[in-house]
Protein backbone atom coordinates (compact mmCIF):
# COMPACT_ATOMS: atom_id res chain seq x y z
CA UNK A 1 0.00 0.00 0.00
CA UNK A 2 2.56 2.55 -1.14
CA UNK A 3 -0.19 4.95 -2.19
CA UNK A 4 -1.68 4.89 1.25
CA UNK A 5 1.63 5.73 2.85
CA UNK A 6 2.37 8.49 0.38
CA UNK A 7 -0.93 10.15 0.94
CA UNK A 8 -0.42 10.18 4.68
CA UNK A 9 3.07 11.52 4.40
CA UNK A 10 1.63 14.53 2.64
CA UNK A 11 -0.96 14.82 5.37
CA UNK A 12 1.84 14.95 7.88
CA UNK A 13 3.59 17.71 5.98
CA UNK A 14 0.32 19.54 5.75
CA UNK A 15 -0.09 19.04 9.46
CA UNK A 16 3.14 20.92 9.99
CA UNK A 17 1.98 23.79 7.78
CA UNK A 18 -1.37 23.89 9.50
CA UNK A 19 0.26 23.61 12.90
CA UNK A 20 2.59 26.50 12.22
CA UNK A 21 -0.33 28.58 11.08
CA UNK A 22 -2.05 27.75 14.35
CA UNK A 23 1.10 28.73 16.16
CA UNK A 24 1.19 32.22 14.64
CA UNK A 25 -2.46 32.61 15.55
CA UNK A 26 -2.14 31.29 19.04
CA UNK A 27 1.15 32.54 20.35
CA UNK A 28 -0.02 36.12 20.73
CA UNK A 29 -3.02 34.93 22.70
CA UNK A 30 -0.77 32.79 24.82
CA UNK A 31 1.56 35.67 25.62
CA UNK A 32 -1.24 38.06 26.42
CA UNK A 33 -3.06 35.47 28.48
CA UNK A 34 -0.19 33.62 30.08
CA UNK A 35 2.07 36.57 30.67
CA UNK A 36 -0.33 39.49 30.99
CA UNK A 37 -3.12 37.44 32.49
CA UNK A 38 -5.54 39.10 30.12
CA UNK A 39 -8.04 36.84 28.44
CA UNK A 40 -8.41 38.49 25.06
CA UNK A 41 -11.31 36.87 23.26
CA UNK A 42 -11.04 39.45 20.51
CA UNK A 43 -7.88 37.71 19.39
CA UNK A 44 -9.63 36.04 16.47
CA UNK A 45 -10.83 39.46 15.38
CA UNK A 46 -7.22 40.52 14.94
CA UNK A 47 -6.58 37.55 12.69
CA UNK A 48 -9.66 38.42 10.73
CA UNK A 49 -8.57 42.03 10.39
CA UNK A 50 -5.21 40.85 9.07
CA UNK A 51 -6.84 38.43 6.66
CA UNK A 52 -9.19 41.09 5.31
CA UNK A 53 -6.20 43.37 4.90
CA UNK A 54 -4.55 40.69 2.83
CA UNK A 55 -7.70 40.28 0.79
CA UNK A 56 -7.98 43.99 0.14
CA UNK A 57 -4.34 44.70 -0.65
CA UNK A 58 -2.67 41.67 -2.10
CA UNK A 59 -2.95 41.53 -5.84
CA UNK A 60 -0.80 38.54 -6.54
CA UNK A 61 2.44 40.48 -6.66
CA UNK A 62 5.24 40.44 -4.12
CA UNK A 63 4.77 44.14 -3.61
CA UNK A 64 1.13 43.56 -2.82
CA UNK A 65 2.07 41.05 -0.17
CA UNK A 66 4.64 43.39 1.30
CA UNK A 67 2.17 46.25 1.45
CA UNK A 68 -0.38 43.94 3.03
CA UNK A 69 2.17 42.83 5.61
CA UNK A 70 3.08 46.39 6.54
CA UNK A 71 -0.53 47.50 6.74
CA UNK A 72 -1.43 44.31 8.61
CA UNK A 73 1.31 45.02 11.11
CA UNK A 74 -0.02 48.53 11.59
CA UNK A 75 -3.56 47.25 11.94
CA UNK A 76 -2.39 44.75 14.52
CA UNK A 77 -0.45 47.30 16.54
CA UNK A 78 -3.34 49.69 16.43
CA UNK A 79 -5.83 46.99 17.36
CA UNK A 80 -3.58 45.78 20.14
CA UNK A 81 -3.20 49.30 21.45
CA UNK A 82 -6.93 49.86 21.43
CA UNK A 83 -7.56 46.54 23.14
CA UNK A 84 -4.94 47.28 25.75
CA UNK A 85 -6.55 50.63 26.40
CA UNK A 86 -9.92 48.93 26.61
CA UNK A 87 -8.87 46.34 29.18
CA UNK A 88 -6.62 48.67 31.18
CA UNK A 89 -9.45 49.89 33.43
CA UNK A 90 -10.30 46.27 34.21
CA UNK A 91 -7.06 45.48 36.02
CA UNK A 92 -7.66 43.29 38.99
CA UNK A 93 -11.21 42.36 38.04
CA UNK A 94 -10.57 38.86 36.90
CA UNK A 95 -10.90 36.93 33.70
CA UNK A 96 -14.64 36.89 33.43
CA UNK A 97 -14.98 40.62 33.03
CA UNK A 98 -12.18 40.64 30.52
CA UNK A 99 -13.91 37.85 28.66
CA UNK A 100 -17.20 39.71 28.55
CA UNK A 101 -15.56 42.91 27.39
CA UNK A 102 -13.37 41.41 24.70
CA UNK A 103 -16.15 39.14 23.50
CA UNK A 104 -18.35 42.21 23.22
CA UNK A 105 -15.63 43.89 21.20
CA UNK A 106 -15.35 40.79 19.02
CA UNK A 107 -19.06 40.86 18.29
CA UNK A 108 -19.06 44.55 17.47
CA UNK A 109 -15.92 44.42 15.34
CA UNK A 110 -17.15 41.29 13.58
CA UNK A 111 -20.33 42.97 12.55
CA UNK A 112 -18.50 46.09 11.41
CA UNK A 113 -16.24 43.98 9.25
CA UNK A 114 -19.24 42.23 7.71
CA UNK A 115 -20.68 45.62 6.91
CA UNK A 116 -17.43 46.58 5.23
CA UNK A 117 -16.59 43.36 3.42
CA UNK A 118 -19.89 41.59 3.05
CA UNK A 119 -20.90 38.20 4.29
CA UNK A 120 -19.09 36.05 1.76
CA UNK A 121 -15.96 34.12 2.49
CA UNK A 122 -13.31 36.04 0.59
CA UNK A 123 -10.61 33.73 -0.65
CA UNK A 124 -7.29 35.42 -0.94
CA UNK A 125 -4.74 34.47 -3.51
CA UNK A 126 -1.10 34.11 -2.50
CA UNK A 127 1.50 35.92 -4.60
CA UNK A 128 1.45 34.63 -8.16
CA UNK A 129 4.88 33.14 -7.81
CA UNK A 130 3.70 30.91 -4.98
CA UNK A 131 0.22 30.17 -6.23
CA UNK A 132 1.04 26.90 -7.93
CA UNK A 133 1.26 23.44 -6.59
CA UNK A 134 4.44 21.46 -6.88
CA UNK A 135 5.01 17.74 -6.75
CA UNK A 136 5.84 16.56 -3.27
CA UNK A 137 6.50 12.91 -2.55
CA UNK A 138 4.62 12.04 -5.66
CA UNK A 139 1.65 14.17 -4.80
CA UNK A 140 0.70 17.66 -5.68
CA UNK A 141 1.13 20.17 -2.87
CA UNK A 142 0.57 23.94 -2.82
CA UNK A 143 3.88 25.77 -2.87
CA UNK A 144 2.52 28.54 -0.67
CA UNK A 145 2.05 26.18 2.24
CA UNK A 146 5.62 24.96 1.94
CA UNK A 147 6.95 28.50 1.98
CA UNK A 148 4.64 29.26 4.85
CA UNK A 149 6.28 26.51 6.88
CA UNK A 150 9.59 28.27 6.53
CA UNK A 151 8.33 31.74 7.30
CA UNK A 152 6.30 30.69 10.30
CA UNK A 153 9.19 28.63 11.60
CA UNK A 154 11.33 31.75 11.50
CA UNK A 155 8.64 33.72 13.28
CA UNK A 156 8.47 31.09 15.99
CA UNK A 157 12.20 31.32 16.57
CA UNK A 158 12.03 35.10 16.81
CA UNK A 159 9.22 35.06 19.33
CA UNK A 160 11.00 32.46 21.36
CA UNK A 161 14.14 34.54 21.55
CA UNK A 162 12.25 37.70 22.38
CA UNK A 163 10.27 36.26 25.23
CA UNK A 164 11.93 33.24 26.67
CA UNK A 165 15.50 34.41 26.37
CA UNK A 166 15.33 37.96 27.65
CA UNK A 167 14.45 39.66 30.89
CA UNK A 168 11.39 41.30 29.32
CA UNK A 169 9.61 38.08 30.07
CA UNK A 170 10.48 38.26 33.77
CA UNK A 171 9.22 41.82 34.04
CA UNK A 172 5.99 40.91 32.29
CA UNK A 173 5.42 37.95 34.58
CA UNK A 174 6.18 40.08 37.60
CA UNK A 175 3.61 42.59 36.43
CA UNK A 176 1.00 39.89 36.23
CA UNK A 177 1.88 38.52 39.64
CA UNK A 178 1.70 41.87 41.42
CA UNK A 179 1.25 44.94 39.31
CA UNK A 180 1.36 47.36 42.20
CA UNK A 181 4.69 46.09 43.44
CA UNK A 182 6.20 46.49 40.00
CA UNK A 183 4.93 50.03 39.88
CA UNK A 184 6.34 50.62 43.34
CA UNK A 185 9.72 49.73 41.86
CA UNK A 186 9.34 52.62 39.45
CA UNK A 187 8.12 50.80 36.35
CA UNK A 188 5.29 52.24 34.33
CA UNK A 189 3.28 49.06 33.89
CA UNK A 190 1.04 50.62 31.27
CA UNK A 191 3.95 50.49 28.87
CA UNK A 192 4.28 46.79 29.49
CA UNK A 193 0.59 46.24 28.94
CA UNK A 194 0.62 48.12 25.68
CA UNK A 195 3.87 46.56 24.57
CA UNK A 196 2.88 42.95 25.08
CA UNK A 197 -0.62 43.53 23.79
CA UNK A 198 0.64 45.30 20.70
CA UNK A 199 3.13 42.54 20.07
CA UNK A 200 0.59 39.75 20.48
CA UNK A 201 -1.94 41.58 18.35
CA UNK A 202 0.58 42.34 15.64
CA UNK A 203 1.50 38.67 15.49
CA UNK A 204 -2.13 37.71 15.09
CA UNK A 205 -2.70 40.28 12.38
CA UNK A 206 0.44 39.30 10.50
CA UNK A 207 -0.69 35.72 10.93
CA UNK A 208 -3.93 36.82 9.30
CA UNK A 209 -2.14 38.38 6.34
CA UNK A 210 -0.03 35.27 5.81
CA UNK A 211 -2.80 32.86 6.68
CA UNK A 212 -5.51 34.35 4.48
CA UNK A 213 -4.72 32.00 1.57
CA UNK A 214 -5.12 29.06 3.97
CA UNK A 215 -7.97 30.16 6.24
CA UNK A 216 -9.84 32.77 4.23
CA UNK A 217 -11.56 35.70 5.93
CA UNK A 218 -15.32 35.59 6.36
CA UNK A 219 -18.02 35.81 8.98
CA UNK A 220 -17.47 33.48 11.89
CA UNK A 221 -13.76 33.01 11.17
CA UNK A 222 -12.92 35.16 14.18
CA UNK A 223 -14.68 32.75 16.50
CA UNK A 224 -13.19 29.69 14.87
CA UNK A 225 -9.67 31.07 15.06
CA UNK A 226 -10.26 32.02 18.67
CA UNK A 227 -11.41 28.55 19.65
CA UNK A 228 -8.54 26.89 17.79
CA UNK A 229 -6.06 29.24 19.45
CA UNK A 230 -7.51 28.58 22.87
CA UNK A 231 -7.26 24.85 22.34
CA UNK A 232 -3.67 25.17 21.21
CA UNK A 233 -2.47 27.29 24.09
CA UNK A 234 -4.31 25.33 26.72
CA UNK A 235 -2.81 22.12 25.43
CA UNK A 236 0.62 23.70 25.26
CA UNK A 237 0.46 25.49 28.61
CA UNK A 238 -0.38 29.14 29.02
CA UNK A 239 2.30 31.73 28.54
CA UNK A 240 4.87 29.38 27.09
CA UNK A 241 6.14 29.97 23.57
CA UNK A 242 7.47 26.45 23.41
CA UNK A 243 4.12 25.16 24.64
CA UNK A 244 2.22 27.07 22.00
CA UNK A 245 4.48 25.64 19.32
CA UNK A 246 4.14 22.11 20.58
CA UNK A 247 0.38 22.43 21.03
CA UNK A 248 0.00 23.90 17.57
CA UNK A 249 2.01 21.16 15.91
CA UNK A 250 0.10 18.52 17.83
CA UNK A 251 -3.25 19.94 16.84
CA UNK A 252 -1.96 20.34 13.29
CA UNK A 253 -1.30 16.62 13.11
CA UNK A 254 -4.56 15.72 14.80
CA UNK A 255 -6.43 17.83 12.28
CA UNK A 256 -4.67 16.38 9.24
CA UNK A 257 -3.14 13.00 9.87
CA UNK A 258 -5.73 12.15 12.49
CA UNK A 259 -8.57 13.12 10.21
CA UNK A 260 -7.06 11.23 7.31
CA UNK A 261 -6.84 8.10 9.44
CA UNK A 262 -10.30 8.20 11.01
CA UNK A 263 -12.39 10.59 8.94
CA UNK A 264 -15.58 9.33 10.53
CA UNK A 265 -14.53 10.74 13.87
CA UNK A 266 -13.27 14.03 12.47
CA UNK A 267 -15.61 16.27 14.48
CA UNK A 268 -14.47 14.71 17.74
CA UNK A 269 -10.74 14.74 17.17
CA UNK A 270 -9.91 18.32 18.06
CA UNK A 271 -11.71 18.42 21.36
CA UNK A 272 -11.04 14.80 22.10
CA UNK A 273 -7.32 15.48 21.87
CA UNK A 274 -7.67 18.46 24.14
CA UNK A 275 -9.68 16.47 26.67
CA UNK A 276 -7.07 13.78 26.69
CA UNK A 277 -4.22 16.20 27.29
CA UNK A 278 -6.06 18.14 29.96
CA UNK A 279 -7.22 15.03 31.75
CA UNK A 280 -3.64 13.89 32.04
CA UNK A 281 -2.02 17.27 32.55
CA UNK A 282 -4.54 19.95 33.49
CA UNK A 283 -1.84 22.61 33.42
CA UNK A 284 -0.90 21.84 29.82
CA UNK A 285 2.15 20.19 28.37
CA UNK A 286 4.55 23.04 29.03
CA UNK A 287 3.15 24.76 32.05
CA UNK A 288 4.95 27.89 33.05
CA UNK A 289 4.46 27.31 36.74
CA UNK A 290 2.16 29.93 38.12
CA UNK A 291 0.81 30.64 41.55
Amino acid at each position, binding site marked *: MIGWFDAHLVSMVDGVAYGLLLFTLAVGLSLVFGMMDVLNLAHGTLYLAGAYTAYALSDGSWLGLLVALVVGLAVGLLGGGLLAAAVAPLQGRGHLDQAALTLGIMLIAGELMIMAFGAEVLPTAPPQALADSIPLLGNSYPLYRLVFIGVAGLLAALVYLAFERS*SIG*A*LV*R*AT*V*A*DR*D*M*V*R*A*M*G*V*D*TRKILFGVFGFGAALAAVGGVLGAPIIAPGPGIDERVLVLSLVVIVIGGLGSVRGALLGALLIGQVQTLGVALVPAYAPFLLFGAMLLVLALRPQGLFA*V*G*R*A
Partner: protein
Amino acid sequence: MTSTSRPGAGRPGEGRPGEADPILSVRGLVSGYDGSRVLHDVDLDLPEGGVLALLGRNGVGKSTLVSTVMGLVRPMKGSITVAGQEVAGARPDRIARLGVGLVPQGRRVFAPLTLAEHLDIADRAGRKGDWTKDRVLELLPRLGERLKNRGDQLSGGEQQMLAIARALLTNPTVLLLDEPSDGLAPSVVHQVADVVHEVCNAGMSVLIVEQNLRLALSVADRVVVMQKGAVRWDVPVDEFRRDRAKAEELLGI
Protein backbone atom coordinates in the same frame (compact mmCIF):
# COMPACT_ATOMS: atom_id res chain seq x y z
CA MET B 1 -12.06 64.17 64.24
CA THR B 2 -8.42 65.05 64.66
CA SER B 3 -6.99 64.96 68.08
CA THR B 4 -3.30 64.95 67.55
CA SER B 5 -1.66 65.58 70.82
CA ARG B 6 1.54 66.52 69.12
CA PRO B 7 3.17 69.38 70.85
CA GLY B 8 4.05 71.95 68.25
CA ALA B 9 3.01 69.79 65.38
CA GLY B 10 2.71 71.80 62.23
CA ARG B 11 -0.90 72.02 61.20
CA PRO B 12 -1.51 72.26 57.51
CA GLY B 13 -0.80 75.73 56.29
CA GLU B 14 1.04 76.78 59.40
CA GLY B 15 4.40 76.35 57.84
CA ARG B 16 7.57 76.22 59.79
CA PRO B 17 9.98 78.74 58.35
CA GLY B 18 13.53 78.24 59.25
CA GLU B 19 13.37 74.46 59.73
CA ALA B 20 14.94 72.33 57.01
CA ASP B 21 12.21 70.93 54.81
CA PRO B 22 11.47 67.30 55.63
CA ILE B 23 12.09 64.83 52.83
CA LEU B 24 8.64 63.33 53.30
CA SER B 25 5.77 65.32 54.61
CA VAL B 26 2.14 64.36 55.08
CA ARG B 27 -0.55 66.93 55.81
CA GLY B 28 -4.21 66.45 56.61
CA LEU B 29 -4.25 63.05 54.94
CA VAL B 30 -7.58 61.25 54.63
CA SER B 31 -7.43 57.86 53.01
CA GLY B 32 -9.08 54.46 52.94
CA TYR B 33 -10.82 51.91 50.78
CA ASP B 34 -13.90 52.13 48.64
CA GLY B 35 -15.88 54.57 50.66
CA SER B 36 -14.59 53.56 54.06
CA ARG B 37 -12.15 55.98 55.61
CA VAL B 38 -9.25 54.52 57.50
CA LEU B 39 -7.02 57.53 58.02
CA HIS B 40 -8.49 60.70 59.39
CA ASP B 41 -6.44 63.83 58.94
CA VAL B 42 -2.95 62.48 59.47
CA ASP B 43 0.09 64.74 59.70
CA LEU B 44 3.61 63.38 59.63
CA ASP B 45 7.14 64.56 58.85
CA LEU B 46 10.20 62.53 58.03
CA PRO B 47 13.35 64.62 58.24
CA GLU B 48 16.13 63.97 55.79
CA GLY B 49 18.39 61.23 57.06
CA GLY B 50 16.04 60.46 59.93
CA VAL B 51 14.37 57.26 61.04
CA LEU B 52 10.76 57.47 62.01
CA ALA B 53 9.09 54.52 63.71
CA LEU B 54 5.36 54.21 63.15
CA LEU B 55 3.71 52.17 65.88
CA GLY B 56 0.20 51.09 66.68
CA ARG B 57 -2.00 48.12 67.27
CA ASN B 58 -3.36 45.93 64.53
CA GLY B 59 -5.71 47.60 62.14
CA VAL B 60 -5.07 51.20 63.14
CA GLY B 61 -4.05 52.16 59.62
CA LYS B 62 -0.26 52.01 59.56
CA SER B 63 -0.08 50.03 56.35
CA THR B 64 -2.77 52.18 54.83
CA LEU B 65 -0.61 55.21 55.51
CA VAL B 66 2.44 53.59 53.98
CA SER B 67 0.47 52.44 50.94
CA THR B 68 -1.00 55.87 50.46
CA VAL B 69 2.42 57.47 50.55
CA MET B 70 3.60 54.96 47.96
CA GLY B 71 0.59 55.79 45.78
CA LEU B 72 -0.92 52.30 46.02
CA VAL B 73 -3.99 53.66 47.79
CA ARG B 74 -5.48 56.86 46.49
CA PRO B 75 -5.78 59.56 49.11
CA MET B 76 -9.19 61.15 49.50
CA LYS B 77 -7.87 64.40 50.83
CA GLY B 78 -4.68 66.00 51.99
CA SER B 79 -1.18 66.49 50.78
CA ILE B 80 1.92 64.32 50.55
CA THR B 81 5.21 65.83 49.49
CA VAL B 82 8.43 64.03 48.69
CA ALA B 83 11.47 66.26 48.49
CA GLY B 84 9.18 69.22 48.13
CA GLN B 85 7.10 67.73 45.30
CA GLU B 86 3.40 67.14 45.73
CA VAL B 87 2.65 63.49 45.06
CA ALA B 88 -0.82 62.95 46.52
CA GLY B 89 -2.76 61.01 43.93
CA ALA B 90 0.26 60.41 41.71
CA ARG B 91 0.93 57.03 40.20
CA PRO B 92 3.19 54.74 42.23
CA ASP B 93 5.79 54.47 39.53
CA ARG B 94 6.21 58.23 39.51
CA ILE B 95 6.54 58.26 43.28
CA ALA B 96 9.09 55.47 43.06
CA ARG B 97 11.08 57.42 40.54
CA LEU B 98 11.17 60.33 42.95
CA GLY B 99 13.11 58.03 45.23
CA VAL B 100 10.60 56.25 47.42
CA GLY B 101 11.17 52.55 47.97
CA LEU B 102 8.87 50.08 49.68
CA VAL B 103 9.22 46.86 51.62
CA PRO B 104 5.56 45.98 51.77
CA GLN B 105 3.77 44.14 54.49
CA GLY B 106 3.34 40.48 53.61
CA ARG B 107 6.47 40.47 51.38
CA ARG B 108 4.62 40.46 48.07
CA VAL B 109 7.36 38.67 46.22
CA PHE B 110 6.53 37.67 42.66
CA ALA B 111 5.50 34.04 42.92
CA PRO B 112 6.44 32.92 39.37
CA LEU B 113 9.80 34.66 39.24
CA THR B 114 13.03 33.16 40.43
CA LEU B 115 14.97 34.97 43.07
CA ALA B 116 17.59 35.88 40.49
CA GLU B 117 14.93 37.36 38.25
CA HIS B 118 13.64 39.44 41.14
CA LEU B 119 17.05 40.95 41.65
CA ASP B 120 17.47 41.38 37.94
CA ILE B 121 14.32 43.37 37.32
CA ALA B 122 14.70 45.42 40.49
CA ASP B 123 18.19 46.30 39.41
CA ARG B 124 17.03 47.36 35.95
CA ALA B 125 13.84 49.07 36.97
CA GLY B 126 15.14 51.11 39.85
CA ARG B 127 17.55 53.97 40.12
CA LYS B 128 21.26 53.42 40.08
CA GLY B 129 23.29 53.89 43.20
CA ASP B 130 25.32 52.27 45.93
CA TRP B 131 23.18 49.22 46.27
CA THR B 132 24.07 46.60 43.70
CA LYS B 133 23.24 42.93 43.40
CA ASP B 134 26.60 41.98 44.80
CA ARG B 135 26.16 44.20 47.77
CA VAL B 136 22.73 42.93 48.77
CA LEU B 137 23.86 39.35 48.36
CA GLU B 138 26.77 40.11 50.61
CA LEU B 139 24.40 41.59 53.14
CA LEU B 140 21.93 38.70 52.94
CA PRO B 141 24.03 35.68 51.98
CA ARG B 142 21.10 33.32 52.44
CA LEU B 143 19.62 34.74 49.23
CA GLY B 144 22.69 33.78 47.25
CA GLU B 145 22.01 30.12 48.00
CA ARG B 146 18.49 30.26 46.63
CA LEU B 147 18.92 32.14 43.37
CA LYS B 148 17.06 29.55 41.34
CA ASN B 149 14.06 29.19 43.65
CA ARG B 150 10.82 30.73 42.52
CA GLY B 151 9.27 33.32 44.77
CA ASP B 152 6.71 30.88 46.10
CA GLN B 153 9.36 28.28 46.77
CA LEU B 154 11.16 30.37 49.33
CA SER B 155 10.68 30.12 53.05
CA GLY B 156 8.84 32.97 54.74
CA GLY B 157 12.01 34.51 56.06
CA GLU B 158 13.77 34.18 52.74
CA GLN B 159 10.91 35.99 51.11
CA GLN B 160 11.16 38.78 53.62
CA MET B 161 14.87 39.13 52.95
CA LEU B 162 14.15 39.21 49.25
CA ALA B 163 11.60 41.96 49.73
CA ILE B 164 14.21 44.02 51.55
CA ALA B 165 16.83 43.30 48.93
CA ARG B 166 14.43 44.23 46.16
CA ALA B 167 13.71 47.58 47.72
CA LEU B 168 17.37 48.34 48.37
CA LEU B 169 18.26 47.57 44.76
CA THR B 170 16.06 50.42 43.59
CA ASN B 171 18.32 52.76 45.58
CA PRO B 172 15.64 54.88 47.17
CA THR B 173 16.16 58.06 49.14
CA VAL B 174 13.12 57.39 51.27
CA LEU B 175 12.69 53.82 52.39
CA LEU B 176 9.30 52.66 53.64
CA LEU B 177 9.60 49.51 55.73
CA ASP B 178 6.31 47.88 56.66
CA GLU B 179 7.09 45.35 59.37
CA PRO B 180 10.42 44.24 57.90
CA SER B 181 11.18 41.87 60.76
CA ASP B 182 8.03 39.85 60.17
CA GLY B 183 9.03 36.21 59.98
CA LEU B 184 12.74 36.78 60.43
CA ALA B 185 14.79 34.81 62.85
CA PRO B 186 16.35 36.89 65.65
CA SER B 187 19.80 36.85 64.12
CA VAL B 188 18.44 38.27 60.90
CA VAL B 189 16.48 40.90 62.81
CA HIS B 190 19.82 42.22 64.00
CA GLN B 191 20.94 42.45 60.45
CA VAL B 192 17.89 44.49 59.59
CA ALA B 193 18.75 46.90 62.33
CA ASP B 194 22.26 47.14 60.94
CA VAL B 195 20.89 47.81 57.49
CA VAL B 196 18.75 50.63 58.77
CA HIS B 197 21.71 52.22 60.47
CA GLU B 198 23.81 51.77 57.40
CA VAL B 199 21.35 53.31 54.96
CA CYS B 200 20.84 56.24 57.28
CA ASN B 201 24.50 56.88 57.39
CA ALA B 202 24.44 56.94 53.63
CA GLY B 203 21.80 59.66 53.76
CA MET B 204 18.66 57.64 53.24
CA SER B 205 15.58 58.44 55.28
CA VAL B 206 13.52 55.61 56.74
CA LEU B 207 9.92 55.24 57.78
CA ILE B 208 9.59 51.95 59.63
CA VAL B 209 6.42 50.27 60.81
CA GLU B 210 7.18 47.64 63.40
CA GLN B 211 5.51 45.40 65.92
CA ASN B 212 8.90 44.43 67.27
CA LEU B 213 9.31 47.27 69.73
CA ARG B 214 12.90 46.44 70.46
CA LEU B 215 13.89 46.75 66.86
CA ALA B 216 11.86 49.89 66.36
CA LEU B 217 13.32 51.67 69.32
CA SER B 218 16.83 50.60 68.52
CA VAL B 219 16.79 52.32 65.15
CA ALA B 220 14.32 55.20 65.40
CA ASP B 221 15.05 58.76 66.35
CA ARG B 222 11.41 59.70 66.40
CA VAL B 223 8.28 57.67 67.20
CA VAL B 224 4.76 58.17 65.93
CA VAL B 225 1.95 56.22 67.53
CA MET B 226 -1.35 55.78 65.74
CA GLN B 227 -4.73 54.82 67.05
CA LYS B 228 -7.91 54.39 65.05
CA GLY B 229 -6.56 56.04 61.96
CA ALA B 230 -5.15 59.12 63.62
CA VAL B 231 -1.78 60.11 64.99
CA ARG B 232 -1.95 60.18 68.78
CA TRP B 233 1.60 60.77 69.77
CA ASP B 234 4.55 62.10 67.83
CA VAL B 235 7.69 62.38 69.93
CA PRO B 236 11.46 61.90 69.87
CA VAL B 237 12.40 58.37 70.86
CA ASP B 238 13.76 59.42 74.21
CA GLU B 239 10.53 61.04 75.20
CA PHE B 240 8.70 57.89 74.18
CA ARG B 241 10.90 55.82 76.43
CA ARG B 242 10.29 58.15 79.31
CA ASP B 243 6.54 57.79 79.27
CA ARG B 244 5.93 54.11 79.55
CA ALA B 245 2.43 54.61 80.87
CA LYS B 246 1.35 56.44 77.80
CA ALA B 247 3.04 53.89 75.54
CA GLU B 248 1.16 51.16 77.33
CA GLU B 249 -2.06 52.98 77.02
CA LEU B 250 -1.68 53.54 73.28
CA LEU B 251 -0.08 50.25 72.35
CA GLY B 252 -1.77 48.04 74.92
CA ILE B 253 1.52 46.58 76.06
